């Protein structure tokens, strides 16, 4: 309930509201939005659960899809002294952080891949008239079960990395690891959101999303030192894949000075991810304001 501040002459309008009340209202609205989002996600999840075999095979597919990484890193790499100056444990850590981020990002942001279809079918026009942000409706349009498999593969790789690395997991390291995963989610979400923003203006289909996913899967699991410098720079400053797994793993294994980027940038990888995501959301709003329905 709004409260009118005591004292003062009557003014035009409803009167001054206290800051605490505004904050309380915003908090209530935030909680309501989360309740709606979780309820819709729960319904999507239950809908997928109706087909048990499909549900299980989707999770299995998520694990299988990432298993080429497991095979290469877990089997091949162990036969060699290392790659790019990184031992098997370090490479496993890069892949683990990347997959953990990827799993969370896929659950939340992979529905953006289908925005081209939604634009073509005119669904965005329907989303625009509903009392829920368009971006949120796109994200809630489906629940990708295979992401659970991606996350499970990430946990498996993380376990393998822990077994091989001799790291002292202090609270600071654990905190940075969590922040790094969140930052990695931010990077993947930012890239997907930028592509989705472009989809609102031009029909680009799903191919660019697949291309992006392929890039992340191909280059995101290994130390970028193995690449030529131009390629390394592109994957750091143009398509910021380095900030997903490589730079955070370098920080955790105390080799941030060997990455080829400024140490403060390596340490700030989680912040970079979140900042990129915020920037991509601004791009989304700009694109949505310029959106023109396919029906004219």
């Amino acid at each position, binding site marked *: 309930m709004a409260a009118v501040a005591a004292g003062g002459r009557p003014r035009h309008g409803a009167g001054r509201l206290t800051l605490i009340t505004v904050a309380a209202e915003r908090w209530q609205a935030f909680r309501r939005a989360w309740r709606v989002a979780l309820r819709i996600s729960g319904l999507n999840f239950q809908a997928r659960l109706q087909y048990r*075999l*499909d549900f299980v*095979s*989707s999770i*299995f*597919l998520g694990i*299988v*899809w990432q*298993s*080429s990484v497991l*095979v*290469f890193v877990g*089997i*091949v*790499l162990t*036969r*060699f*002294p290392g*790659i*790019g100056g990184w031992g098997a444990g370090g490479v496993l850590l890069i892949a683990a952080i990347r997959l953990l981020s990827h799993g969370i990002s896929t659950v939340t942001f992979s529905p953006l891949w289908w925005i081209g279809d939604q634009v073509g079918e005119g669904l965005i026009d329907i989303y625009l008239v509903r009392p829920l942000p368009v971006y949120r409706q796109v994200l809630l349009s489906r629940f990708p079960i*295979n992401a659970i498999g991606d996350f499970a593969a990430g946990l498996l790789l993380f376990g393998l990395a822990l077994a091989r690395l001799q790291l002292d997991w202090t609270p600071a390291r654990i905190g940075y690891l969590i922040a790094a995963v969140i930052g990695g989610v931010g990077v993947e979400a930012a890239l997907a959101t930028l592509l989705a923003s472009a989809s609102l203006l031009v029909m680009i*289909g799903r*191919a*660019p999303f*697949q*291309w992006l996913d*392929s*890039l992340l899967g*191909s*280059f995101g699991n*290994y130390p970028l030192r*193995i*690449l*030529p410098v131009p*390629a390394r720079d592109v994957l750091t400053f143009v398509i910021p894949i380095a900030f997903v797994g490589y730079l955070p793993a370098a920080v955790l294994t105390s080799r941030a000075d060997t990455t080829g980027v400024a140490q403060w940038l390596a340490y700030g990888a989680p912040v970079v991810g979140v900042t990129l995501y915020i920037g991509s959301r601004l791009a989304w709003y700009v694109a949505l304001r310029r959106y023109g329905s396919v029906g004219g």
Partner: protein
Amino acid sequence: MTLITDFGQPATIVTPLLMVATQLMLTYWLWRALYAHVHSSAGLTAGQATSYALLGVLYLRFRAQNRWPNGDAMQQLMLDGTIAYWFVRPVSPRRYYLIRSAGDLAYGGMWGALGYGICLAAGAVQPPASAQGALATLVTLAIGLVVLYYVQLCVDLSCFWSAVNDQTVIAVQFVVNLLAGAFAPVWYFPGWFQRADEFLPFQASLNVPLSLYVGRLPAGTVYREAALQLAWAIGLGLVTWRLWRRAAARVTVLGG
């Protein structure tokens, strides 16, 4: 027809080609980095392992076409009932499937050959270990593709008896690719894995031809390997012939 369609819609070929190009580049850099301080591992030198891995990437990308986006996969035809048309055409469904697969292979083979030529010219892939090795590779590759054709056919025919979805098909393809040595040469796997894999038909499709190409297997072993491949091809051919007959007797389409 596929080629004409794809060139009319460049986006349908540009993205896959870009994905293949980046995959090839990463594979090359990965294997070179692995062998930076190692001369030989699992009986393979840096050049052999890199060539094997690059050819494996080309094989994976181009040996089959993905029909799911077009709604033309066997499982999808079963779901919407149009599989029934296969059995009323003047061409038998078995022959139609063969012609379609041959077309897919020819199309993919064209791109694969182009990729091979580019990699060879760039020095990323070594030439065959010997002329005999090259001939042995072609022979075993041809028979290996026949084996793989029958394996894929078994998976597709299974949809006549169970509701096989796309995820199951992809999972099966992954296992086939793993056992064929597409993700990493079989030579790097533990001994028990290699011995178990010898009893399966999958490594005949890729590991054997590529091992002959890079010289990991001497060209003289082609007779034994080809005989094994032929045995698998004949066995699987008989199984699929039987399955086609039973499938024709029972065309159960979801929805009645």
